[in-house]
Each structure stands twice: as C-alpha cells, then as structure tokens.
C-alpha cells in the first residue's frame, strides 16, 4: 500500500491528477495514440483537445480555490480572475475552430493554445501547492 503522506501527496492531489488532469488529457492521449497507429492524415495535436484540457483544469481550479478553508482573499481573487480570463479565451479559440477561417493562421493558433495549456497546468500546480501548504 502506498503511503501518500510520506511521498508528499495527499488524497486531493491524487484525485486531481487522476480525475482532472488525466481525464482532461483523454482527447489528447487518444489523438496521439491514433496518430501513432493510423496510416491516415491524423494530426498529433488538435486545438479542440487542448482547449478541453484547459477548460477542465480551470473549472477544477475554481472549485478547489472555493473549497480552501483558510483562503487569502487576494490570492483567491487572482486565481479566480486568471481562471475566468483563460476560460473566456478558450471559449473564443473553440469558437474559431468551429467556424474556420482563411485569415487565421492555424499553426500559430495551435502554438499559442499549447502555451496556454502549459500555463493552465502551471496555475493548477500553484493551486495544488497552496493545498499542500494548508494541509501540511
């Protein structure tokens, strides 16, 4: 039996890794797997998959921030504000993928979405870091 406290991982961290991070990455993993085994023109990464990952992370962030027992109001406002900005942007990016346009450089948009997904992951890690600190 793994003792998560000894390795510095609480139950909430494991839950976050499995139910939020891993579930959010299912479209990305599925597409990567299909790209690896398929002979057809499947892209390894798609904007919609990364947007889904980002949406899952930020909605989980808002939930975890609201559940923190000893919350600093300033820190809470910053985290919630950033999550809202990212959620709106992800929605707009998804909007442009539904109605594709010649004027938009799709590879540049993919790169910026990858950047946003990485930053979303980092923001989630800072929320987890706060949870680790509060729970001891």
């Amino acid at each position, binding site marked *: 039996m793994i003792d998560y406290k000894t390795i510095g991982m609480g139950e909430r961290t494991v839950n976050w890794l499995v139910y939020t991070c891993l579930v959010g990455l299912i479209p990305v993993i599925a597409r990567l797997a299909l790209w690896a085994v398929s002979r057809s023109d499947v892209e390894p990464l798609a904007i919609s998959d990364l947007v889904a990952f980002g949406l899952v992370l930020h909605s989980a962030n808002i939930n975890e921030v609201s559940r923190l027992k000893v919350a*600093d109001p300033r*820190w809470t406002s*910053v*985290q919630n504000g*950033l999550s809202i*900005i*990212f959620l709106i*942007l992800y929605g*707009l*990016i998804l*909007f*442009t993928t539904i*109605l594709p*346009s010649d*004027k*938009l*450089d799709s590879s*540049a*948009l993919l790169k*910026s*979405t990858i*950047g*946003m997904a990485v*930053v*979303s992951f*980092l*923001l989630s*890690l*800072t*929320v987890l*870091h*706060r949870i680790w*600190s509060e729970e001891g």
Partner: protein
Amino acid sequence: MTGLSIFALIERALPAASIIAVALGSAGAAWSYIHTRKRYYEEFKKRRHRDS
C-alpha cells in the same frame, strides 16, 4: 453581418490575447507560488516561536 464583423474582430484580437494571457498566467503562477511559500514560511516561524 454584425455576427461576421464580431468574428473578424475576434480573429484579429485572438493571437495578441493569447500571448497576453500566457504572460499574465505565467506572472500569476509565479506570484501565487511565491505568495504561498512566503505565507507558509511565516506560519512556520509563528509556530516555532510559540513552541520555543
């Protein structure tokens, strides 16, 4: 027609908005990490002061 012009506006603003979001998000993550470390260190100092 209004819908199409809103879409054109979004298209123009999106690349810059993504870059700004990445910069803001990175700054926010760094601030959050430093803030948590500072707060945790102050709590640790208070506890040590109480115990000694």
